[in-house]
């Protein structure tokens, strides 16, 4: 069984219609899994389902062999899941350092080491650690957001479109950093709009259409798959 094994997920928001149907997503430790697909395919919804922000009618979510299908999001954080939302993912009025401290809120041990690691990963944050996060540039804000999520020392890091609205150069750099994070043994699940670039660094890709799995393969294989290329990657 995979480290994260979310299988057969079916559900929607509140009592509304199902947005995802029989959707399966798995991630291994130290691997990057990417969910791609056209707009409205339920990519973000699938991630929220994994994080417990959705009422699942069917399916199970297992983390490290433990069933967590019915746990609320806060408890999933305690179990080692970290989520970086797409928008409003930092505390804009607080300094960079305070943002990281808030990320470590649930930890009672000394988190100085983790903060040092985050600063090592994102050196610019160390430089600006006493600045309000709201004053930073778009790319730097994303770094704060990822850094905040890393402060809990998650075993699974989930990123909802981390490169939305940042320039291509910043995007490349962010992907590099995410690769680095994965190399340290953390499982990464990412929803991406920039499908081609994301699949290039992905160990595993899930192509969702209308809330259902259409293709599941390694990132390389999906990139090579002519059908996927034609339908989802623009040729």
């Amino acid at each position: 069984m995979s480290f994260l094994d979310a299988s057969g997920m079916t559900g929607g928001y509140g009592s509304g219609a199902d947005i995802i149907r029989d959707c399966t997503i798995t991630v291994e430790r130290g691997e990057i899994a990417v969910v791609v697909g056209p707009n409205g395919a339920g990519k973000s919804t699938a991630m929220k389902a994994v994080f417990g922000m959705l009422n699942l009618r069917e399916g199970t979510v297992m983390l490290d062999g433990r069933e967590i299908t019915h746990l609320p999001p806060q408890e999933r954080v305690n179990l080692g899941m970290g989520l970086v939302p797409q928008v409003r993912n930092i505390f804009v009025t607080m300094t960079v350092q305070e943002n990281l401290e808030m990320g470590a809120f649930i930890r009672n041990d000394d988190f100085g080491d983790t903060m040092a690691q985050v600063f090592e990963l994102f050196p610019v944050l160390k430089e600006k650690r006493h600045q309000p996060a709201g004053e930073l540039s778009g790319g730097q804000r994303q770094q704060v957001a990822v850094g905040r999520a890393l402060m809990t020392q998650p075993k699974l890091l989930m990123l909802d479109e981390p490169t939305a609205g940042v320039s291509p150069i910043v995007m490349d750099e962010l992907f590099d950093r995410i690769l680095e994070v994965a190399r340290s043994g953390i499982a990464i699940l990412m929803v991406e709009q920039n499908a081609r670039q994301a699949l290039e660094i992905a160990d595993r890709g899930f192509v969702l259409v209308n809330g259902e799995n259409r293709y599941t393969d390694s990132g390389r294989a999906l990139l090579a798959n002519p059908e996927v290329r034609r339908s989802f990657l623009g040729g």
Partner: protein
Amino acid sequence: MDILNALVLFANFVFVPATAYGAQLALGALGVTLIYGILRFANFAHGELMAFGAMAVILCTWTLQDMGINLGPLPTALLALPVGIFVAAIMALLTDRYVFRFYRLKKSDPIVFSIASVGVMFVMAGLIRVIIGPDDQSFADGARFIITAREFREMTGLREGLAIRQTQVITIVVALLVMALLFWFLQKTRSGKAMRAYSDNEDLALLSGIDPDRVVRIAWIITAVLATIAGTLYGLDKTYKPFIFQQILLPIFASAILGGVGQPVGAILGGFLVAYSEVTLTYAYKKFLAYLGPEGWVPDSLMQFLSTDYKFAVSFIILVAVLLVRPTGIIRGKVI
């Protein structure tokens, strides 16, 4: 010499009283802004909470006075403050548990909270009037003045005297102390930071494992502390009368909005700005100008911009000006 006399006159009738009043408004506005920042609604019951806390302080002060316990030259009310704070905090937590929590869980519109706070206001107003009555209550004791006008005149040889009442100094000192503590709490402690995080971005605070119930509880307790102290200081400095605390709600809201809703620093700034504008615009400058003008000249009229009857108009005009020019307030506050 005349310039000095004019300055002393100004200090005596404008600067000193306005500073004390500003400190009281600032404490009140801090409470309003805190609830706004955390629970995101305009709490119309805040004036009553101030009156309620101050009432508890007064009752305790009377008991202490009867027992012959006092602080010497300082007002006994200071000794009674912790009791008042405790009672007000219990009251605030009870209203949250039995009124506001329900709407919080339902994620109701802020206006619904505000209307509910009107209900709370009614209940608290009734309780206060049943318990202590609607009339003026005096509870100040200890020394009246730090320096009287006569002492000042004898000391300096000036024609004008500067009287500084003890309650004014206590108001300012206590207010500064409370504000310093509050900022230390918000900036340096884990719980304080959690509160700021919750106020900034509720969803992300939840994702970070911050317990919303705990944040809300702490917010109410701090609000009760601020309200009780503000109400007691106002009562010591001026007079305690339940009805006044309904009237003072307007300048308090004006202060909070002027400073930027949800911004503690803004609330303090706003409190002092409103107080200074109120007092400077309603002061009669006749004597002041007479000192500055040529010998023997006295202005015909009172030289007053607004009659003191209209001091509430000052808060209101400030409020309207802020709404028109910079709705977010001096320090950019929340716009829900």
